[in-house]
């Protein structure tokens, strides 16, 4: 440090002390407050402030709610104030602040004058950082949940499709053999009825399996899975899906296919549930290294700004999260009375593998 700048430094330090957002306390060896800056005054109650100024060494405990040790989130065990010679570079502490409740701070305490034992205690607000971290964590969790759900669905779907449905089919074949044996008419009729029930049950199981996760998606890819799904939608819900795909039966990474399939499924279901229309347009194509999905209806639409969802409102959130899983961009445009458009753009690099 250049000696000639000494006055400048003390000037700057005074400014730092006065204008910093960080709360700064000076304590003497006994733990009495020597001084505190404006930011520190702001966070503590007047009552505590007065006690501090009166020299009460316990006053700080009224506002401090403990620090974070490896054992506990908030503890007073071997408090940072207890040993006047110990310097702690950085630790986390909770303070009951004026008007904002208990919030986390990053704190440091160190001796700045060996002779008098004066120590400085600084607090940096951590709430924003905490919030960011929490959001990040939540996103990560959401992604994990989506992945776990998808894996579980895949497992169950496979089990139903390859296990239960196969068994069911072989008993159905056995039953059919029975019809060609020499049996009474009333038995034959009963057998036929049972055959009908079994076939329905088989259909049920297959539906369940496909609803959980279509095997076609893994075996034949997006286009085939969509065609089957839309045919099913049309038959069961009477919604016509105008589907055009231009993928040349390309295959993509499993995760990308899952994301695109789920987002499209959700969008079409949303149109079915809320748009009150008879037709939806779906386009799927690859362009300049991106896989595009386009879902549009000319139904009721909704107001993007003041949006009060008719359903859970989680659908759109979930779609966004899913898109992020594969670095995709998800956009939704809607206008009351004009309809809704959903756009998804997923980077696929050099393009999928041709089959």
């Amino acid at each position, binding site marked *: 440090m250049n000696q000639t700048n000494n006055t400048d430094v003390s000037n700057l330090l005074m400014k730092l002390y006065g204008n910093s957002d960080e709360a700064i306390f000076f304590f003497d060896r006994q733990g009495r407050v020597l001084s505190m800056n404006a930011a520190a005054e702001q966070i503590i109650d007047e009552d505590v402030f007065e006690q501090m100024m009166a020299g009460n060494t316990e006053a700080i405990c009224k506002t401090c709610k403990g620090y974070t040790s490896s054992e506990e989130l908030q503890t007073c065990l071997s408090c940072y104030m207890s040993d006047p010679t110990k310097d702690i570079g950085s630790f986390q502490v909770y303070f009951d602040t004026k008007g904002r409740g208990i919030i986390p701070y990053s704190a440091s305490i160190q001796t700045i004058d060996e002779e008098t034992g004066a120590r400085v205690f600084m607090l940096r607000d951590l709430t924003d950082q905490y919030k960011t971290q929490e959001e990040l964590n939540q996103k990560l969790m959401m992604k994990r949940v989506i992945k776990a759900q998808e894996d579980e669905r895949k497992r169950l779907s496979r089990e139903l499709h390859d296990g239960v449905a196969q068994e069911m089919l072989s008993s159905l074949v056995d039953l059919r053999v029975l019809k060609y044996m020499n049996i009474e008419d009333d038995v034959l009729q009963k057998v036929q009825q049972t055959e009908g029930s079994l076939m329905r049950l088989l259909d049920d199981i297959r*539906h369940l399996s496909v609803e959980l996760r279509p095997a076609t998606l893994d075996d034949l890819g997006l286009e085939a899975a969509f065609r089957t799904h839309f045919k099913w939608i049309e038959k*069961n*819900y*009477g919604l016509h899906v105008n589907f055009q795909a231009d993928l040349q039966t390309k295959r993509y990474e499993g995760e990308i296919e899952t994301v695109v399939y789920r987002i499209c499924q959700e969008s079409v279901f949303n149109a079915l*549930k809320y748009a009150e229309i008879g037709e939806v347009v779906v386009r799927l194509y690859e362009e300049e290294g991106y896989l595009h999905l386009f879902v549009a209806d000319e139904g009721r639409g909704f107001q993007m700004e003041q949006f009060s969802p*008719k359903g859970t409102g989680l659908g759109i959130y979930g779609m966004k999260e899913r898109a992020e899983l594969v670095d995709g961009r998800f956009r939704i445009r809607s206008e009351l009375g004009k309809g809704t458009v959903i756009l998804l753009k997923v980077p696929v690099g050099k393009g999928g593998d041709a089959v």
Partner: protein
Amino acid sequence: MENQVDFNYQQEIERLKEKFGFDYIGIALAQSLEHRFEMKWMYVTGNLSEQYRLLKVQYGKGVAGVVFKTGKPMFVEDAEQALSGDNLFNYPIVVAEGLKSFGAIPLYKNNRVNGVMLVGSRKRLALTSEGFAQFKKVTGKEFGQSFQEEMVKNESDQ
């Protein structure tokens, strides 16, 4: 329909529609083995759209699917309230025909549900539970072997 020589469904539902003042009646029947026993809407009267021709009844889903599976009648006095928003899309025939109150009964054949008759009105609360009960009572007699009230009771007692 080749196997319906003994009973004219179309004529019958038109007569019932007049008699009870329904806006719509539809009958869904299970298909033969060749069609994997799938259930389709076969006879309708008072329909607004032709969409019923495309629809397949999925076992256990929608009006017909539920009645088909449970073998019990189903009655919804106020569709807007009971099947609001999120749930209505599961009842495509109700949506397509704009039914506001409706009821459905199972049609039995050889002790099994072979079909479903859906009756409904496009006015809210137009079909009351008394009205539906009356309809069930009368059709029980008039609809011959297809619907027998005691069967419905037996099923629901279990």
